[in-house]
């Protein structure tokens, strides 16, 4: 209990004085996870829509596989990406191991299935309701997919936020491919792991509180925008 109180005080102090190192770590965490979620959505949303609207052999199997990929363990993704980007690996020439780019790649791989699988479900539910009307109006599968993507946008925002949450919270992947290098690839979760291993539990917990507060703040912001838009567009 004492440690939690210490942690809350520590968190408050860190935020209050806007500690340089803290700001650097927070900004990097946001950069990496936000970039990853943008890329994952660019890949996952069209894929989800295509599977939702399309009819092709093996579709059911693909859906099961995609759903299963949501449970990819971050540490395994990290390991695989490390082996790919290592100098001894196929993409070693790129030299991006232990850089934020590698972290973005790992997190994108982690979140894209989540965005694809969940958006597939949301869009398929909407397609069931909209299908006859859209086809009657002359919408082909591509036009229908795009229309559904826009019409289910409020659900999709929640899905994208879920993806961001997953990325911002994981440590297994970014630790392995990033290396937790101070000032270069140290993000909130890896910093928390480090401070924990140094035995400085109040500081680690304090960082944890900052991280949770950050994600809460982002979610609150997104929720406000969503509500305003929903009022406007129904």
């Amino acid at each position, binding site marked *: 209990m004492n440690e939690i109180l210490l942690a809350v005080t520590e968190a408050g102090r860190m935020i209050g004085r806007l500690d340089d190192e803290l700001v650097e770590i927070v900004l990097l965490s946001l950069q990496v996870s936000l970039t990853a979620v943008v890329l994952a959505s660019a890949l996952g949303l069209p894929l989800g829509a295509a599977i939702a609207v399309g009819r092709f052999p093996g579709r059911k199997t693909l859906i099961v596989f995609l759903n299963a990929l949501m449970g990819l363990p971050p540490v395994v993704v990290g390991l695989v990406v490390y082996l790919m980007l290592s100098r001894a690996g196929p993409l070693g020439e790129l030299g991006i191991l232990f850089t934020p780019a590698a972290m973005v790649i790992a997190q994108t791989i982690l979140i894209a299935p989540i965005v694809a699988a969940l958006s597939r479900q949301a869009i398929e539910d909407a397609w069931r309701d909209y299908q006859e009307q859209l086809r009657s109006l002359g919408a082909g599968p591509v036009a229908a997919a795009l229309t559904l993507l826009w019409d289910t946008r409020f659900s999709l925002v929640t899905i994208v936020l879920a993806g961001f949450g997953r990325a911002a919270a994981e440590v297994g992947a970014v630790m392995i491919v990033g*290396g937790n290098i101070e000032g270069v690839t140290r993000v909130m979760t890896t910093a928390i792991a480090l401070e924990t291993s140094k*035995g400085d539990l109040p500081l680690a917990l304090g960082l944890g509180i900052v991280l949770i507060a950050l994600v809460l703040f982002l979610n609150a912001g997104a929720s406000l925008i969503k509500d305003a838009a929903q009022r406007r*567009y129904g």
Partner: protein
Amino acid sequence: MALNGRRMVATIMMSALLAAAPLAHAEKFITVASTTSTENSGLFKHILPMFQRKTGIEVRVVARGTGQALDMARRGDADVVFVHARAAEEAFVAGGYGVKRYAVMYNDFVLVGPRSDPARVAGGREIAAALRKVKASAATFVSRGDKSGTHMAEIRLWKASGIDIAAQKGPWYRELGQGMGASLNTASSMNGYILADRGTWISFKNRGDLRIVVEGDKRLFNQYGVILVNPGKHKHVKKDLGQAFIDWVVSPEGQRAIAEYRIGGEQLFFPNAAEAGA
């Protein structure tokens, strides 16, 4: 109105991608694979800025266990290794993966244990005897279990006590597979014995009921070495910058920086690059 929404989405995407732009920087830097004990002790945070100020070279430390650090270097993912397992280091060089091993500094290991001291080892000066007592009393013993320098030292010490720990361990022996700090956390909460390097112990803040029970045995000597990864095996290794780092670390200036590093007035590492046979 639909256009409005589309524009908003596009703006968000652009700003996210632009924000990612600074993620690609290319400066003068080297990658050093080192151990969790050196990272956790805070030594690098103290000496690396000095090196960067002098040479403009940024040193990026990836801290793993010794075993993992050497493995990383074998794959070519580091320019320099800075570890503390002499036998493994020499094998690394002999295998052609490293150019030359330089001694840098030493500290020592300490046996840390609970205040209640169930194995009755406190105050002893002989580690072999202490370990025999730990096994005899089946007191909880926490091992790094991660092929790190500390782990390899621990195995060596069990052997020196006449115990083949792999064959003779019981449920009292807890293998974690984690770094020094994480293992100390576990030992602290389990109230178990654990072998730690003094540097990490001094800077460790979650001691709980633990304190040093055995120290000073010559066998507990812990030597650190630094090696340039062989550019012959991996063309991209930054051999000039890497060598510059090694040269500085063994130079009088670098050695002084190491000696100056203290926590609570206590020196953690003792420079010995000039010592023959180190």
